[in-house]
């Protein structure tokens, strides 16, 4: 993975010093609450219901074991001994004291981590595919490009005060595991007719109150032009984006109000002016790529026979492998998901002790690296098949071997009313109830992939509008109600879900999920997936049953 040089390290160290001084000025009364707010936000510090919340960037979801141990250490010393992973592969500390944040940032800087631009109206952490570099169908590894974008976007002097937050995601294969079509800019590495690899550029996707699927602005961009094209889009947006209404300030609204053709003309006109100056040279591309070269995989890994034996002997292991383990591009290697959706645990949470174990396992079995996914799970990406059983036994002992990846229980869920100052309704307790209702794993496997996404308010942090089943908490005269949508997707077939009907009271949410599943089971053709069934039959059959029962 990428390693900081002296320039990179100086940048994060100087940020810590800058933020330490900003915190000091705030505490001394030299900065008002209002003046301090955007400054702390640009360092990832929110003020929530109970305490501040610090969001730390995990660039494109990649972490070293050393970094993960430091996360565990920081969470023990400055927080309550656990962290929370987000849908944009960052992690959050839910209970730090505001005065200690500069010290936390200094600790993180010592392992090349930071909270720079993890919130605020600026360019956020760039995200990617959790299977980057290890997936067989990949056109090209997107991570070097993410790192190039990370550096370009870090402290970009012109784009620190944009109309609204700005998120970029990059993928290198046709499957979309990073929700790129729901980002302000989505970049897809593609091959053109001549066989050259470049970027398809999408713009104006986004979730929140007005979910919109991104539109193609350029079918093919040469790699060397990546930064000039991004800079052109950002400059057009910085000047044109609305600043009178924060709900209309995202680039998706700029694109909708001006039309993609007009935006494209403006971007292309800007681009030709800066293209040459910002052209990436091959030396820099190679420098960054050299941090992501393929490791020396063991050619004998596939010769192992113990894997097949353990699969046959231990059904619990076999079940975990079937659900949580996928093939690596190199024969004899596997990629294992560590589910952070264990029953009774808020989705995405992991304790300090578990983090330490994951770091140890990464060192022993998976080249010392850990990845976070958009679905709020972790992965070890380079495990020899012969090591899987030993790995699984250790994960199981720490409650990290829940075999529920991509099942209905692998939910994305926001913190909701229990933690968040914006929420209208609870979400974590409902996720727990759903988890308890669907506790039969074989039944879950039979249902196949079902993505439930549940947000406690219309800001939509859990991306409910692109859930196969989306659940949105709304406030009705002080009571918590839930609006269901069906048929959304954040993947290559991205779509915004359709409303099921009127909102449902809190005590009927779990029953409603069960009803939806019953209808699906009746209507599905053989092994058809939930999303396919919904798209084939529409929402009406589901609607009829849910509202008949209510």
């Amino acid at each position: 993975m990428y390693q900081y040089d002296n320039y990179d390290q100086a940048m994060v160290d100087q940020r810590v010093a800058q933020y330490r001084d900003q915190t000091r000025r705030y505490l001394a009364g030299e900065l008002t609450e209002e003046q301090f707010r955007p400054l702390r936000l640009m360092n990832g510090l929110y003020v929530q219901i109970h305490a501040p919340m610090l969001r730390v960037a995990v660039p494109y979801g990649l972490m070293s074991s050393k970094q993960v141990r430091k996360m565990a250490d920081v969470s023990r010393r400055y927080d309550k001994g656990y962290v929370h992973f987000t849908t944009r592969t960052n992690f959050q500390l839910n209970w730090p004291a505001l005065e200690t944040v500069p010290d936390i940032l200094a600790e993180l800087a010592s392992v090349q981590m930071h909270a720079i631009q993890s919130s605020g109206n600026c360019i956020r952490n760039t995200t990617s595919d959790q299977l980057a570099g290890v997936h067989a169908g990949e056109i090209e590894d997107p991570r070097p490009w993410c790192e190039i974008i990370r550096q370009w976007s870090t402290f970009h002097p012109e784009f620190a005060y944009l109309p609204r937050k700005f998120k970029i995601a990059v993928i290198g294969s046709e499957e979309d595991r990073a929700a790129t079509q729901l980002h302000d800019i989505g970049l897809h590495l593609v091959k053109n007719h001549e066989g050259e690899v470049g970027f398809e550029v999408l713009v104006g996707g986004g979730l929140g109150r007005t979910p919109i699927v991104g539109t193609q602005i350029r079918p093919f961009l040469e790699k060397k032009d990546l930064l000039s094209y991004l800079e052109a889009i950002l400059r057009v947006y910085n000047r044109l984006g609305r600043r009178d209404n924060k709900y209309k300030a995202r680039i998706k609204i700029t694109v909708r109000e001006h039309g993609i053709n007009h935006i494209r003309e403006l971007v292309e006109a800007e681009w030709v002016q800066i293209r040459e100056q910002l052209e990436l040279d091959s030396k820099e591309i190679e420098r960054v790529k050299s941090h992501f070269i393929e490791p020396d995989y063991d050619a004998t890994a596939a010769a192992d026979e113990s894997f097949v034996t353990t699969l046959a002997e231990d059904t619990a292991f076999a079940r975990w492998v079937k659900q949580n383990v996928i093939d690596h591009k190199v024969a004899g290697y596997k990629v294992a998901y560590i589910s952070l959706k264990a029953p009774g645990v808020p989705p995405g949470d992991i304790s300090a002790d578990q983090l330490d174990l994951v770091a140890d396992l990464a060192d022993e079995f998976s080249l010392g690296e850990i990845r976070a996914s958009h679905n709020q799970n972790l992965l070890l990406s380079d495990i020899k098949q012969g090591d899987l059983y030993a790995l699984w036994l250790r994960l199981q002992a720490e409650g990290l071997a829940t075999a529920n990846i991509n099942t209905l229980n692998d939910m994305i869920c926001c913190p909701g009313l229990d933690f968040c100052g914006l929420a209208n309704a609870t979400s974590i307790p409902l996720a727990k109830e759903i988890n308890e209702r669907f506790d039969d794993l074989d039944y879950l496997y039979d249902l196949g992939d079902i993505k439930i996404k549940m947000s406690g308010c219309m800001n939509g942090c859990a991306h409910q509008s692109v859930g196969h089943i989306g659940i949105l908490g709304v406030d009705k005269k002080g009571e918590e109600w839930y609006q269901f949508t069906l048929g959304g997707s954040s993947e290559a077939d991205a779509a915004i879900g359709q409303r099921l009907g009127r909102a449902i009271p809190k005590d009927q949410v779990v029953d409603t999920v069960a009803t939806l599943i019953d209808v699906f089971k009746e209507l599905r053709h053989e092994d058809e997936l939930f999303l396919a069934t919904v798209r084939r039959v529409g929402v009406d059959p589901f609607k009829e049953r849910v509202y008949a029962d209510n």
Partner: protein
Amino acid sequence: MQIIKDREIIEDKWLHLDDEAEVIAGNFTISLARWQAEHESLVKHESGLGLRLTGEDPLEEVVPDLASFSLIVLNFPAFTDGRCYSFARLLRDRYGYKGEIRAQGDILHDQLFYMTQCGINSFEMANQQRIADAIPAFDDFSESYQTTVLKPEPLYRRR
């Protein structure tokens, strides 16, 4: 009033003239509306003439007149309004403006580094009492990854 210009605290030699106020003999700045209405008489002004712009103004329409101004004032009604960062970049990089570019409005010292990188070289600080405290902020960071007005080559060409 004191301002910061080229990293030094100096007395301001400019008057910001209201649209209704009578023209005076010394250096003054005017709004774009006044420039558009009265430019024929204003070009004859013998002292310095400055133009005040906001992020709402059509920057490109002013470009042919840039030579008339020795000062461009960019207004930041709230420091979260970042439009004029792009204005400054364009004035320096694209339109070759060499005169003083000044930031006015909600200017805190946390923005000085970014503003300087974008080509702004003078500052009317929101907090006059603490103006000296702002000077170290120009050195918050020793490097920038990007191509900026101060460093036209990106960091990766200097690594």
